[in-house]
């Protein structure tokens, strides 16, 4: 390694240090300002890293390897590859948006709130950067812990119950994964370190990929890993934590959860599950796809019946994630590329939706569709943004989600005609529940609750405009994003062959 | 001498200790029985160490140290510490409750 600081280090340490500093800023204003400032710096680093995407030319900028627990064959190995670039960029982009859009909210104990938020960011970055199973697991849990505190301290009325459910669900999944990691570790080949030390086994991704595992072992290991990822995504029938948690968590945390954290599950599939257990991934692809598609329809039907706006968005998110998961397992370039695009687009869109929902809830105190009506009269700008984002969410052409969903469906169709047909019904259902929500909440005559609603503030207009810019930018010119991840997509497909 | 005799003695002492702990209600007697068990184990350790730890050739070498006998000292030290702490607790209990009957001492449960 050279003497300069690499991108993975910056992306990981900056939020960590910023988070720790935030704990000492007791004033509401200074904690907020610090959080926004540091999140912008991290975004700057992340944007800069996009310009050093050439893995051959700039290899030394994108890799870092410290010795950590050498004796058990572990090292602190971080790599910024093209999958990581996509998701670290999403993470870095989301946090300033989240901080600015919720700027008006005053939290009690702001220092710990913003500190924990930044620690979450550090944890997420670590997950997306780790190339060592132990480090990956470490950050996987590290990202969870601040969220647990954030939900249980700043959440809604039923926060304890919801948070407990969330924690137990994800923790149960994580432990299964840990068993899997240890088992695979015990079957990895020897690893020689630079200084001559030879560890019997190793946690490095490369060693995991060369572990000697029989088909039978892969079979049950697959389900151990998949359990952790499926809970995180979540996939039917592991999803019931999500609507409750989204409903009860403070909205900025919900944004993190739905925008980025659910991508951890998909990322786990991309980075670990398929490369480490390629045979089993092929073998069980159909089961996973069918589960995902059941989830799409199931969640969509429930979304139609939801009165709680937050739960509606939660179920819509379950349906979307289900589609991405199915596409990842469909094993062709179109579907996988579509899933990559959609991971990014979904993150942007859903954060946009939450911003609007949060504003409604903060101003009216209502979070049920039946309580609200006629918001469009008093808050036309807000309504326009919501309609645009909601339509992007249901994949209208020229918005970002269309490109992703189009590719995913085309790929699913290639894998099996009926996958695309049945999953396609989800497109119609998505239109039904989204339009129903828009109609009830935004159209019609305004009522007592919505009469005095105020339109979006300048900061909110700004972030919503940024989101809309991304929606149309990617929707019209998706190629740069495709080029960014092309390498990862082809790498993933090459493993399976 | 045969190891079996040592084993029999140690087993007898240990059993007396266990039975004592189980049936007696006086804290001091229970305490003594625990000491009895510890010493039964000590006896067994010393006996095994003497007769089965190493071959004669090894024992003859200059650097040979019997590990098990060191353990015995550990146990004795721990037992001594335990006595001092344990007796102190019993004394304090007696001062507070005027009883050393362990069946009455269940207030930590809740």
């Amino acid at each position, binding site marked *: 390694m050279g003497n300069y600081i690499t991108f993975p280090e910056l992306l990981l340490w900056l939020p960590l240090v910023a988070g720790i500093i935030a704990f000492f800023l007791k004033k509401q204003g200074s904690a907020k300002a610090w959080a926004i400032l540091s999140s912008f710096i991290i975004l700057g680093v992340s944007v800069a890293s996009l310009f050093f995407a050439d893995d051959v030319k700039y290899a030394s900028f994108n890799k870092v390897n410290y010795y950590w627990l050498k004796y058990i064959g572990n090292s602190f190995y971080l790599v910024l590859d093209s999958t990581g670039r996509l998701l670290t960029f999403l993470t870095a982009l989301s946090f300033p948006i989240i901080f600015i859009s919720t700027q008006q909210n005053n939290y009690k104990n702001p220092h710990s709130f913003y500190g924990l938020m930044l620690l979450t960011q550090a944890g997420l970055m670590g997950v997306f950067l780790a190339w060592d199973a132990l480090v990956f697991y470490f950050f996987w849990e590290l990202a969870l812990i601040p969220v647990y505190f954030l939900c249980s301290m700043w959440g809604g009325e039923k926060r304890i119950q919801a948070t407990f459910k969330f924690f137990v669900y994800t923790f149960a999944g994580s432990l299964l994964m840990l068993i899997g990691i240890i088992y695979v570790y015990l079957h990895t080949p020897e690893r020689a370190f630079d200084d001559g030390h030879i560890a019997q086994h190793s946690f490095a991704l490369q060693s995991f990929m060369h572990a000697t595992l029989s088909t039978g072992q892969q079979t049950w290991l697959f389900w151990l890993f998949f359990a952790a990822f499926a809970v995180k995504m979540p996939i039917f029938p592991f999803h*019931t934590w999500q609507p409750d948690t989204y409903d009860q968590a403070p909205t900025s945390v919900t944004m993190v959860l739905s925008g980025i954290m659910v991508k951890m599950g998909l990322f786990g599939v991309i980075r670990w599950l398929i490369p480490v257990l390629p045979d089993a991934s092929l073998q069980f692809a159909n089961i996973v796809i069918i589960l995902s598609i059941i989830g799409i329809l199931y969640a969509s039907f429930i979304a139609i019946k939801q009165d709680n706006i937050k739960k509606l968005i939660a179920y819509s998110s379950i349906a979307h994630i289900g589609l991405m998961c199915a596409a990842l397992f469909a094993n062709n370039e*179109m579907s996988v590329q579509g899933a990559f695009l959609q991971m990014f687009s979904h993150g942007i869109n859903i954060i946009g939706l939450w911003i609007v929902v949060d504003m409604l809830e903060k101003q009216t105190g209502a979070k049920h569709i039946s309580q609200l009506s006629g918001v469009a009269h008093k808050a036309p700008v807000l309504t326009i943004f919501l309609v645009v984002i909601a339509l992007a969410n249901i994949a209208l052409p020229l918005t970002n989600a269309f490109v992703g969903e189009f590719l995913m469906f085309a790929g699913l169709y290639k894998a099996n005609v009926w996958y695309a047909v049945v999953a396609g019904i989800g497109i*119609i259902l998505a239109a039904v529940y989204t339009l129903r929500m828009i*109609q009830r909440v935004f159209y019609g005559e305004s009522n007592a609750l919505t009469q005095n609603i105020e339109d979006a503030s300048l900061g909110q207009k700004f972030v919503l405009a940024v989101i809309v810019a991304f929606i149309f930018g990617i929707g019209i010119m998706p*190629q740069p994003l495709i080029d960014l991840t092309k390498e990862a997509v082809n790498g993933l497909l090459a493993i399976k062959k | 001498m045969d190891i079996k005799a040592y084993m029999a003695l140690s087993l007898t002492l240990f059993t007396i200790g266990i039975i004592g702990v189980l049936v007696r209600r006086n804290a001091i007697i229970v305490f003594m029985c625990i000491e009895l068990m510890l010493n039964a184990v000590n006896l067994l350790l010393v006996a095994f160490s003497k007769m089965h730890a190493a071959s004669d050739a090894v024992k003859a070498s200059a650097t040979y140290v019997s590990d098990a006998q060191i353990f015995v000292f550990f146990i004795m030290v721990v037992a001594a510490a335990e006595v001092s702490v344990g007796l102190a607790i019993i004394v304090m209990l007696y001062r507070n409750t005027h009883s050393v009957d362990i069946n009455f001492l269940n207030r930590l449960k809740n």
Partner: protein
Amino acid sequence: MSNISALIWLIPILPLIGFLINGMGRKQLSKGISGIIGSAVILASFILSVLVFFQVKEAGAFNVNYFDFIRLSDFKLGFEFKIDQLSSIFLLIITGIGFLIHVYSTSYMHEEPSKDFAKYFAYLNLFIFSMLLLVLGGNFVIMFIGWEGVGLCSYLLIGFWFKKPEYTSAANKAFIMNRIGDLGFLLAVFWLIAKVGTTNFDVLFAPETLKLLTANDVTGITLLLFVGATGKSAQIPLYTWLPDAMAGPTPVSALIHAATMVTAGIYMIARSNALFSLAPITQTVITVVGLATALLAASIAIKQNDIKKVLAYSTVSQLGFMFLALGTGNYTAAVFHVLTHAFFKALMFLGSGSVIHAMGGEQDIRKMGGLHKHMKITSITFLIGCLAISGIPGFSGFFSKDEILAGAYGYSSMLYGIALFAALLTAFYMFRLYFITFRGSFRGTHEQAHHLHESPAAMTIPLIILAILSVVGGAIGVPEALGGKHELAQFLAPVIKSAAHHLDHTTEYMLMALSTALVLASIFAAWSLYKNYKASGEATGFGKVLQNKWYVDELYQTAIVQPLSALGTFFNNIIEKKGIDGFVNGVGKAVNYGSRQLRLLQSGQVGAYVLLMVIGMLLLFIIQLFV
């Protein structure tokens, strides 16, 4: 002239710019300015479209590829436009009629507050933009962008007055029904991608590509595309949104029914005629569906009392005729009818708008009557529209409808018979509408009678222009039997391989004479029944069934909407809450219960602990010894 191809992008972009200006500046712009901007961009597009038309006429079709929309290692999708005879004609229809509707709207919508006025024009411009994209698209995906875009715009415009829940419900219905069709369209696109790896029209319709598709592929793809067309062009079973779409402002109805949206399905099938000609099964399906729709909608129109609803069902019925033409391989006739229908349907919708305007928002024809005296221009132009749609010789509708009927006759005389019957119904209900509305005596309130007036010039001039076009528009397609050359067919020949049967001239004369005589008879019947219409009681018997639109909406409600809704409730209340969550919470409860039981072991008795410990040790010994 030849440089026009470099400016093609301006045709859709100009309305988009209009949309952005009006949308962003809706609070600042005055009504006059936003109306002028909205109309001017369309006029500019129209002028460019005319230039493009002549370019195509002289130099033939050309393609423009702007950038790669999606590029994967084995798949490439360009953002490309295809400008040929077919799309250039549609460009003219869309921008030309669109422009007239914009001009008309500046007056019709004048009552709206200025920010809604600007919003209206923004939506209208966006609508034109989407439709232009649809028509210009050089592959199915770009076409689909416009395809969904018009669905979105119709949603926005139908729900324009969003305070009323029934209007927004109509908007939702339109969007969702369109989405059902869109799914069919998308699946067809995926099928094509999976089979031939491209959706580019030029590559796709080349004979060597078509060879890659088996007969089953072609049938499947075309059927799915047709499902898409039924959604957009309001055919059975997805037609019910169109009559409900009357909730929007009247000029919007004119736009949807005449120039844009509903013609999309026709355009798409005409565009892919090479594919459809290979699929006899699909063609039969299209014929049957088209004919059934034509008949069903016509029968419903007879008993409707809302002026716009009558026109809406007449559109559905006329679209049925167009699909009949497509199904019989008579693609040129379908395009021809789109063209003439655009003239007279826009005319009648704008005319009805003029009537509604004069009546102060009243749409029920039972409360009108005798309006001819008060608004001569509207009345006369409306009459011209009725004559055109009925197919009176000399008017534009005659030529196009006659061509469709002749094509049907060439297929089978039974088809011809049913189609002719639907055409007679058309003449009947249109003249019923005319007589009830414009003739007889006025039946509205005194206040309304006082208020009656002819509409301002911004509304009547478009009416007059459209009336002229409705009369002379047929000239471009005069059949050879009547000494014409059918210039439209010749112009479209490079794009469309028409497979219509050719009849000899004598048969054609006979058919024309027959249909003309019967149409005149049916107009006479309408005249005798409705010349002095008096509002009567509620319809009974069969009339009631027709008035209630064969109860199709109710049928959909009970057969589809309610079961699905119940399924959602079932999932939510039973499976989600009791099933999955019940299981999860059950595990939690079990653990809770178990630990409460285990807690009892902690008695606090030191002796009991020791006993347990000893038992445990003994067990370990036993296991060690014997197992």
